[in-house]
């Protein structure tokens, strides 16, 4: 319940945060909403020496359109994403995913950037950003770089963030043309984390056939991944029930699903297939 001691800094700017982080590459940690880090600290599973609180950098919390992109600041809370009219209009997958995270208290404080950087294998956001082909903007002491979501999640709780780097922004191409999106999740009854979570973005041709599908899967493997087998199987089909069912079978291609007290590997695989099918169907139903 009580974390170990640490030092705390609340820089006013991102530049300051970067330099504070650089001052102790091993012991410093970024604190955004704190809803991944603080629980770990309270159990003393994480004992950083220095917390650099970027939650106070107001300019890091935003949702805006710019050209053909949606830009989301790293410290934007789950609730801000859930309740954004703009997103509801142009990219409903984000609010859809946001509202299934944790509970209202967690959504009020937890941030998208914090969640992505933490890379919990059962977190919801990784699935959504994968399905949206997001790019993540990382800022370090020397330079800023952009990483594709697909390359960002490296392993269990491990991302491409290098020591000293901070996730600054999430960039998403504005979905265009005919499309439908959905996030379907089987929550753990105790923790609320995704036993499986499936985020689907379905691009449709004028005739209603599948132009391209992009699908993110969380909870199944040690990290979130793109279900490329499903995407490929769906592509070009008329997305009828049969095609959806067949494509969904590929959700665990190349993956050995996690096994834990709640769900065995076999059952988790089944949940992934079922939720995949339901997510695609829901996305199709929502397609304009």
């Amino acid at each position, binding site marked *: *319940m009580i974390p170990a001691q640490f030092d705390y800094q609340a820089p006013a700017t991102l530049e300051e945060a970067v330099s504070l982080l650089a001052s102790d590459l091993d012991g410093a940690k970024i604190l955004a909403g704190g809803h991944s880090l603080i629980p770990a600290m309270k159990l003393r599973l994480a004992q950083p020496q220095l917390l650099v609180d970027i939650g106070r950098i107001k300019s890091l919390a935003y949702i805006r359109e710019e050209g053909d992109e949606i830009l989301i600041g790293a410290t934007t809370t789950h609730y801000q994403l859930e309740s954004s009219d703009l997103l509801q209009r142009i990219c409903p997958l984000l609010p859809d995913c946001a509202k299934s995270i944790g509970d209202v208290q967690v959504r009020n404080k937890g941030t998208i950037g914090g969640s992505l950087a933490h890379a919990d294998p059962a977190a919801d956001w990784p699935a959504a950003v994968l399905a949206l082909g997001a790019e993540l903007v990382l800022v370090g002491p020397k330079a800023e770089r952009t990483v594709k979501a697909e390359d960002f999640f490296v392993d269990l709780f491990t991302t491409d963030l290098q020591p000293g780097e901070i996730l600054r922004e999430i960039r998403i191409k504005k979905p265009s043309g005919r499309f439908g999106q959905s996030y379907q999740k089987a929550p753990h*009854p*105790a*923790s609320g984390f995704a036993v499986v979570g499936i985020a689907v973005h379905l691009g449709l041709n004028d005739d209603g056939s599948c132009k391209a599908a992009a699908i993110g899967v969380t909870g199944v493997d040690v990290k979130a991944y793109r279900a490329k087998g499903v995407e490929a199987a769906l592509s070009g089909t008329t997305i009828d029930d049969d095609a959806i069912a067949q494509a969904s079978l590929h959700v665990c291609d190349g993956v050995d699903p996690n096994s834990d*007290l*709640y769900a065995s590997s076999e059952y988790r695989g*089944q949940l992934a297939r079922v939720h995949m099918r339901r997510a695609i169907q829901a996305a199709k139903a929502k397609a304009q």
Partner: protein
Amino acid sequence: MTNNYVGKRVKRTEDPRLIRGLAHYVDDVALPGTLHVTFVRSIYAHAKITGIDTSAALSTPGVVAVYTGQDVAGKIGPVPCASALPELKVPDHRVLATDKVYFVGHPIAAIVATDRYAARDAVDLVMVDYEELPVVTDVEQAANGGPVIHEAFGDNIAYKLTSGEGDIDAAFTAADRTVKQRILHNRLAPIAMEPRGVLARYFPGEEELTIWSSTQIPHLMRTQVALMIGIPENKLRVITPEVGGGFGSKLNVYSEEALLGWIAMQLGKPVKWIETRRENMQATIHGRGQVGDIEVGFKNDGTLTGLRYSVFADLGAYHQLLTPAIPTLTGLMLSGAYKIPAIQMNITGCFTNKMATDAYRGAGRPEATYVVERALDLVAAELGVDPAEVRRKNFPSPDEFPFHTATGLDYDSGDYETALNKAQEIIGYAQLREEQKKARDEGRLIGIGVSTYVEICALGPSQAMPAGGWESATVRIEPTGKVTVLTGASPHGQGQETSFAQIVADELGVNINDVTVIHGDTGVVQYGIGTFGSRATAVGGTAVFVAVQKLKEKAQKIAAHMLKADASHILFEGGKYSLQAAAAASATGVSEPVVPVGQAPAGALPEPETDGKSNLTIQDIALAAHLAKDLPPDTEPGLSATYFFEPKNFTFPFGTHIAVVEVDHETGDIKFLRYVAVDDCGRVINPMLVDGQVHGGIVQSIGQAMYEEVVYDEQGQLVTGTLMDYAVPRAKHIPNFELDRTETPSPVNPLGVKGVGEAGTIGATPAIVGAIVDALAPFGVRHLDMPVKPENVWRIINGN
């Protein structure tokens, strides 16, 4: 007497402080200079302690003291076990481990520091060297040659007991058929929302120790802790402030309570320990934890002939207060709501490398009900008849009460069929079965589960209880007319501050706001037993009721004196004593004051004016009784009465629960479609409180049936160590409950009440599991073990 409150939906008098955040739980009590205690607990399930190095912890800023098992050896007596069973093996259970640890969470050292943060820091600095020993967590392995936990005993069997009546062999010979089933009762964590907590303060001059504890049994705890630390019982005061739920987990005497008291005496400063949720999962008792084999004999027409149940009870590493007794309660209730000529139960209680099991809401009776109800479902399946009909067939009829069971009990009163009928009517049973058939044809899996339960409440006659089964009450009316009720029951959320006030307000004809119910302070309240076993209202409420009658007897005498009439002519109605109309005319002055009344000193209370009055409120009388200027001869001043109520029997509430579920073919998800509960808890004091008890009980049943399970791995590590993995039901997990009642008063107490605190946890699990099994009946399933998780369901549907 008035009828303003009892039986009505009266808003709780407890609530204004609770809803405004102004109530005080243990951790909310702040004493200046309080030191904080944390515990170093074992991370191994079974190991020798080969060394403890506390030096680093002691040199941490803020740390005042560190105590190990050696430091307290010989100074604090063993943690008590109050269960007396023949040849029971009782391990020496010390407040801190000495040479060995027996379960993960076993306390090893107590750290005292100036604040919570420093105390927690020091925990990481105590170095304990362990030598691991072989671990046994499976109860049957423990019984059958697994590693021995307490070496002196030679094996892990704490006791064996056979109970029941009737010729069991003849019963099975007489049977046309039998069904057998192995049944598991999952180990559960009570999870009171407020974890345990203790605050202790010692005044060396007065030699007075005060312990604030989140407990259900302040007086019993006082006695035991006084014995443990060797101080006179009347120099120890136990205060139970607001208690954030107990469910049996606080019906106990724990290491920490005595230890904190002892530390406060050593250091001469207040010391506080507040349990963390992880400690609560590890080191507060668990419930259930039985695995047994049931066998039922029956005739082809469904008539039951006999029932046999052999069970291994997983007691954990040590006995807590009632650990060994809990499975014996299962034996008492194995007749359920049915006429069963012969019943036999064989219990083998075993030690395992886990936390002790003990009373958790229902305590042994949910196990019995679950076993019997599952068995009845199996009988129905075997005979191909409706499960409700098998039940109906075996009910005793209302005129058979008191009904003697082959478990040795006499059920007080009951009308089981009426409750069943009512539940079936509400849910539209016949039509529901039709709809189920139709749904099945459409490929939907809908299941209906029926449970007709009886429970044993109002624990209980002292003969059957380790520390007495009575309850106490004092009712007094203060000079200003305010009514004070002191109850030995120690409610912690059940709402007796309100329901007892309802009883008293009606009996005295006063406004409920004039009644204050005080409980949970041994310095204020006469000795009492406590709140558990659905006893507070049936036993404690009766004590209050009878105490009020005693008080009224006295008031009546005084009233007669004041109204100058014979007591037999005084009528008490609407809170007023008055001369009966007919008698008024013949009223004569009964007596003159024996002692001449002097002039009242300035500032004295105004004397009641009685001259010329034909009636007096009981509050007028209370004032007169206190002023004592003009009382009948041989009358003690004051208006107060105390009563200790000893019940002659338990009470036996009952009811019918029907659950309707639908399971998802693909995911195994279980969804409630309906839930109807018709409960009969005798006379109802406050229907709103009764509904609340039933709701809460059912949801704990939903937890047991579908979500909750304390899991230790083979090495004895508690892998469901937090609420991340141990699933307590949330609002989204519950159905909309449709409740109703029948009301069969109990003849055991003058109130006619039976108790309702555990009804939901006892009645609901079999209905829920029965419904899930029924939904899966097309797959040939007749039983599933709890918790029934979606994966289990999915495996059944998919044949693996």
